[in-house]
């Protein structure tokens, strides 16, 4: 067994997962001396009936919901955060519950900064002013198309991101009434994001047993449940297993240096306004092929996580790295027809690739060279093998 390198690891969120998990929220709120949360969600979730189920979970409790702010759509903007913060203050709320996925949670985190820091200037924290204290209790209830990013320590508002350990949610509730997805596309994108993050964390050059444990479990769940989840997006048990995988992958990702796939996908998403998940689907196979091509070490643990002990033990040691990569590619092949496979399909202009590679390399702190980033991007753009 390897000796761990120096590492730090933080998972602040308590996670409650399983049957009737939402009914535990009032008890948990009591632990924070909170009784009046503001709920941040989207109109789509309100109309789908999920918010009705959520409200039903508070029956016979001492909690009063300070308001259901359901104006969030597919974009987290400062205007929404200010409106929700105004509602929070007017109603005398003492905590925040985000029901939904990316944008809803981003708005909730932004509201939390505004109300806890008693300010209207959110962006000063994006420009270097550090968050120095615990914010208000934040509870996250992922619903439908969660990607696990709700569990991370990052907030993205108006396409600007801020990372701080005070931005981790205090409680994450995975309830099987909320997790089933509405469509296969939704599951496809969520699983790809989790896969990219878990693979990135599993292959990071820092040896941290914590990151490895979280990434391993995430990959194991994805390996076991991804195919069924894509076939039956509304299957309750599978969706809960996948949401656990998304959470595990996101926590591994939050504590590991960002992988090349994530960095490039985020830069591409910024440049094109197409979701990062679609780019992760395209880039992940090329990144792995690039690693093989450059004879970089791909840990056997990747294969162990995806295939299980029996198959791992039956495979000769020298073949395990390659087998791990093949497993990832096989899982991604299951997404055929649900997500684009080359950047040409997404009509990404080729001339932008240089700038994107440069920005991703700079954001990695030069861990990835600009040339390597560009090579992966160009192969992915053309759909050309290494």
């Amino acid at each position, binding site marked *: 067994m390897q000796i761990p390198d120096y590492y730090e690891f933080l998972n602040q969120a308590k996670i409650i997962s*399983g*049957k*009737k998990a939402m*009914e*535990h929220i*009032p*008890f948990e709120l*009591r632990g924070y001396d909170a009784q009046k949360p503001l709920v941040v969600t989207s109109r789509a979730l309100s109309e789908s009936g999920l918010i009705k189920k959520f*409200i*039903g*979970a*508070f*029956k*016979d*409790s*001492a*909690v*009063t*919901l*300070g*308001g*259901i*702010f*359901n104006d969030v759509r597919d974009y987290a903007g400062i205007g929404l955060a200010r*409106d929700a913060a*105004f*509602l929070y203050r*007017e*109603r005398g709320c003492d905590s925040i519950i985000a029901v939904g996925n990316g944008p809803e949670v981003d708005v909730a985190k932004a509201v939390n900064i505004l109300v806890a820091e008693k300010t209207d200037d959110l962006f000063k924290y994006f420009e270097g002013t550090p968050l120095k204290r615990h914010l208000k209790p934040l509870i996250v209830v992922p619903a439908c198309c969660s990607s696990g990013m709700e569990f991370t320590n990052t907030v993205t508002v108006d396409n600007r991101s801020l990372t701080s350990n005070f931005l981790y949610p205090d409680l994450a509730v995975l309830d099987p009434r909320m997790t089933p997805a509405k469509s296969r596309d939704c599951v496809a994108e969520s699983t790809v994001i989790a896969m990219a993050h878990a693979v990135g964390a599993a292959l990071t050059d820092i040896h941290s047993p914590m990151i490895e444990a979280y990434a391993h479990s995430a990959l194991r769940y994805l390996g076991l449940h991804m195919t069924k989840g894509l076939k039956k997006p509304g299957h309750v048990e599978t969706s809960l297993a996948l949401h656990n995988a998304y959470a595990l992958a996101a926590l591994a990702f939050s504590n590991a240096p960002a992988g090349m796939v994530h960095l490039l996908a985020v830069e591409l998403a910024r440049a094109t306004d197409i979701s990062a998940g679609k780019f992760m689907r395209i880039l992940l196979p090329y990144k792995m092929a690039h690693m093989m091509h450059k004879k970089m070490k791909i840990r056997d643990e990747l294969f162990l996580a995806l295939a299980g002990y029996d198959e791992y033990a039956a495979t000769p040691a020298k073949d395990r790295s390659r087998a791990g990569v093949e497993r990832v590619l096989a899982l991604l092949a299951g997404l055929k027809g649900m997500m684009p496979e080359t950047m040409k399909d997404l009509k990404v202009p080729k001339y932008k690739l240089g700038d994107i590679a440069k920005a991703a390399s700079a954001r990695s702190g030069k861990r990835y060279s600009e040339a390597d980033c560009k090579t992966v991007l160009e192969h992915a753009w053309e759909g050309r093998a290494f």
Partner: protein
Amino acid sequence: MNINNYPEIKAGKDFISKIYVAIMLWIVGRAIQAASRVDKEVKKEFAEFPADFMMCMSILPFGPHMVVGKDKNGKVKYMGWNPQGKKITLTMNIKSMAAAMQVFTFQESTTTAFAHDRFTVDGDIVQGLAVVRVLNIVEVYLLPKIITKLAVKRYPKWSEMSPLRKWVGRIIIYVRAFTF
């Protein structure tokens, strides 16, 4: 923005669940009292408790409650539904009415509910676990096997509880629980 578009929502009430759980707690409380006089295992569990033992099982946050304790003569007694003014030595709370319904409709056994963190215990954890064992035995007496199997961790074998002991005990516990 018009904040009236986002009204406050007060928690609803589920009277049916509350009444059902209150009745179940009353039955279980009375049955524990009766079983402590009939069943040797229950007797043994309570014998090891201190003389001032008083347990309150509550559903958070507003009840109902069940208080069971030892009286001046050291006999186990159902002390009613109101913990006010009683010197409680062991509090077992079920975190929500939904969790209580899971347990009392036998969708989840008491031991599984403990493992799922649906209970909190304030007091001696050893006594808390003994109470869970007592509840298991009481359920075996009170309920038919097909339901009890859902409610207990492991249904006792013949060698552990003979049918004769079970049926005689069941009749006496039912008579005592519902009469005096």
